[in-house]
Structures are given as structure tokens and as C-alpha cells.
């Protein structure tokens, strides 16, 4: 019985080790690969659309958006503090109120913005968490997490 179990145990131990290794190696970047996508759907999609398309001339798109590309440094504070007033995106004027998000951590904002920056026709440089924390300093929006 025990001779039968032992190799099985070894096998599973090996499996666990491999799993740990895999988790650790992805962990260098982020162990929450799809967090950005799910955060987007939870916090942004109701206004900006499930595909980032926006809503007519009411809500600007975040997909294929020149604003997203040009205002890379300003986006973390917009997510944290929200925005209002006139804004031009892809040549169209928008004027709506966007709420801030006090409930997101710096790393969640990072994952969220990286998802947007790398999808739907946007092909911009991703952020590191440290960079986002620094960019959140001007609006006193960094929670250091």
C-alpha cells in the first residue's frame, strides 16, 4: 500500500513545487493577470462601455483613444479623483462628470490602466506600481499599496 502511495505522493509534491514556481515567476510582474479586465468591467464599463467604446457624444471612449495615449501621466489621478468639465477625445468635445475611485489601491489602478493601455486599439507603455504611486502624488492620491 505504502509503496504504491509513495510515488503518487512524490508526484503530487513535484506538482505542488512546479505550481509554486509558476506562481512565483508570474508574481514578479503580477499574480493577478486579469485583474485589470475585471476592474474595468466592475468600475468603468457602465459608462465607458464593455468594449471601451463610450456612449455617443456623452461619454468618451477609452478604446483607440488619443487622450489615453497623450495623457499617460495624468490618468492615475483621473481614476483616483475623477474629472469634470470639457474634454476633447479623438476630436470630439465631451462634458460629463466622472466619479473618483477612493476604493482602489495603487496596484489596482496600475492593473486597470495597464489593461486599458494595452487593449482595444491602444498600444501604449504599461505602468509599474511604483510609477503609478509617484504619478498619484500630485493629487495626494497614493495609498502606497
Amino acid at each position, binding site marked *: 500500500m505504502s509503496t504504491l502511495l509513495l510515488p503518487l505522493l512524490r508526484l503530487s509534491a513535484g506538482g505542488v513545487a512546479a505550481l509554486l514556481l509558476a506562481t512565483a515567476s508570474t508574481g514578479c510582474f503580477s499574480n493577478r493577470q486579469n485583474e485589470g479586465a475585471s476592474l474595468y468591467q466592475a468600475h468603468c*464599463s*457602465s*459608462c465607458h*462601455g464593455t468594449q471601451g467604446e463610450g*456612449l*455617443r*457624444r*456623452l*461619454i468618451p471612449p477609452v478604446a483607440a483613444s488619443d487622450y489615453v495615449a497623450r495623457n499617460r501621466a495624468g490618468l492615475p489621478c483621473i481614476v483616483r479623483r*475623477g474629472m469634470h468639465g470639457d474634454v476633447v477625445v479623438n476630436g470630439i468635445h465631451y462634458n*460629463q*462628470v*466622472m*466619479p473618483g475611485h477612493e476604493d482602489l489601491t495603487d496596484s489596482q489602478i496600475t492593473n486597470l490602466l495597464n489593461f486599458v493601455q494595452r487593449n482595444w486599439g491602444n498600444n501604449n507603455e504599461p505602468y509599474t506600481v511604483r510609477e503609478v504611486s509617484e504619478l498619484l502624488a500630485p493629487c495626494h492620491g497614493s495609498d502606497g499599496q
Partner: protein
Amino acid sequence: MTPSSLRFSLSRATVAGLLAAGSLLAACSSDTASSQPDRLPIQGIKRTKPTSPSDTLPDPVPAFQLTNQDGKVITNQTFAGKVYITDFFFATCPSICPKMQSEMLRVYEQFKDDPNVLFLSHTIDPAHDSIPVLRDYAQRLGIQDASRWHFATAPHDTVFALARAYMTGAEKDSTVAGGYAHSGTFALVDSRRRIRGMYDGMEKSQVDQLIRDLPVLLKEEAELRQTAAK
């Protein structure tokens, strides 16, 4: 769970319950429960005292007077002989309104060539949503013809009372983003001021159901007109 999200889900639960009751009613009157009914149920709540033992129908939509984005006064008479779909929103609503209005827009696109189908969006923030604000909102949404889709305002009490009549929850709530808590219910109203369907405007599948239900009601309305003409 925060109180606001609780309230929101509560109102959604109410809507879901009513919707379930509605489909039960529909199932009773139809031979094949799974297929589209040939007649939509009459929905709503009876709050007034019955005038006779046989008076069991829900209250009709009460008389109202609102002002639309063109500054025109609109009343029940504006919708006479038509069917219409209502919702409640406000222009600066940061949570469910854009999603809701984009779903309403989907219904509008499907029926914009049918003059017998009208749309009525009520603002629940009349202090901010002046007529110019409503007009700007409508135009940004792509609605140029106010006589097809009214974006209407009225004093708070009027709007909140109408929301109850249309089976939508709407109230002032400083704890939620934007300051107003409301559900995303769409109500389908027939030419006799009766609610014939309620749909969660945040759920694509329910709005699809509304798009399927509308022709059923329009057929009934056409038959009604024919009978009246005889």
C-alpha cells in the same frame, strides 16, 4: 455591503420579484409557457380602493404634466393612442444611467421608424437638469426629435410619485455617487395608461425581451384601433 448597494439590490430584487410575477401571469394566459405570449399581462400595483368587487386591475398611470427638452409641456395626452417606454435618470449620474440609456437607445434604434412608439426619460435631479441641460443631454445621445423621445423634468415630488407609478425606485440618497438612488427599470405603457411590461434596463437580456414584447403590444393596439373604427 454598504447601505446604498443594499438599497440598490433591494430595489432590484423588488423588480425581479415583480417581473417574475409578471411572467407567471403571462404563463397562465398562454398555452405554451415558453414561447412569446400573444398578449402582454397588465402589471402594477393597486393602491386605490376598489370601486366594485370586480375592480381588481392595477392603478393606471396617474395624470401628469412635465416639461421636455424643448420647453414644451407634455401630459398623458401627448402619449394618447401611443405606447411608450419610461425610465428615470439624471444627466450627471455617474453609475447606472449611461448603461441604462445606451440600452434604451438600442430599443429606440429598433423602433424609431414607428411613430406609435414613444420614449420618456424623467430626470430625478430637476435642480441641476434644466431644460438646456436636458436638451444638451438628448443631443449628445443623438436624439434630435424631442417628440419621439422626451427628456422631461418636473418638481421632485411629481417625479418621485411618477417613479412609484411606473414601478421604479427613485429617491434622494446622499450616500450614493451622484446623490440619488434609483433603479434602472424600464416600464412599457399602453395607450390606456396601463403598464404592460417591466424590464431591468441594466440587463441586456431583459431589454431584448422588451424589444420582442413591443410588437405584441403594437399588434393589440392596432386591433383596438380597428375595433374602435368599426
